[in-house]
């Protein structure tokens, strides 16, 4: 693709129960494969998508959260999580997966950042394209 724009994908839904979380990830991976600049936001029930130790075998789904580990390879390394959404659900940052990416200098950095609603507003305003799932 000749040009690129900045995409933000906002995830508000739980990982299982509806298909939207999985389909959002499919869109994000394609955008990454097309070398677009992608930022992810997880809020409301979307924060559950990033929790560790998911085991959906009982409902016949595969644990697709493992795919989040590959995001760094697509240069998707700006992942913001809404602090209030975590707090309301009794979750802490340590309940979330450790997602990392490698900088151009070869250092490993954490991709997830827990931010406030105000900061999210600024982040959202900075994007060209908003996808909302």
């Amino acid at each position, binding site marked *: *693709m000749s040009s*690129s724009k900045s*995409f933000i994908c906002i995830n508000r839904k739980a990982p299982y129960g509806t298909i939207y979380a999985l*389909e959002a990830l*499919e*869109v994000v991976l*394609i955008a990454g494969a*097309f070398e677009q600049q992608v930022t992810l936001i997880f809020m409301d029930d979307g924060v559950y998508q990033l929790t560790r130790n998911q085991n959906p075998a009982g409902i016949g789904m595969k644990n697709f959260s493992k795919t989040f580990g590959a995001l760094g390879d697509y240069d998707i390394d700006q992942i913001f999580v809404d602090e209030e959404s975590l707090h309301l659900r009794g979750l802490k940052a340590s309940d979330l997966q450790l997602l990392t990416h490698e900088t151009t200098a070869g250092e490993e950095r954490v991709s997830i950042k827990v931010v406030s609603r105000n900061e999210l507003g600024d982040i959202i305003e900075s994007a060209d394209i*908003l996808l909302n799932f």
Partner: protein
Amino acid sequence: MFNVPPSDDRNIQQLWSTLAEQNSLDMVVCAAAAQRRGILDQKEADRHGKPAANIAPHFTISGLGQLIEAAVVSDRLVVFGG
């Protein structure tokens, strides 16, 4: 295209097909999403051994790359849905 809303209700799929026909619009459906929901064009139906195609007129099946490309070349992307 096999939806049959009550006669006193609007037929949304029909409205979309008419809108596209009258305005020469592209209406693109993601292949993976369509398959999950049981919506197939003739090619997909043949490929998966299904007895019939059921995608409404003026809708076409394609890949997510088209969504990304459309977003990049357009002035504005508007997203609906909860």
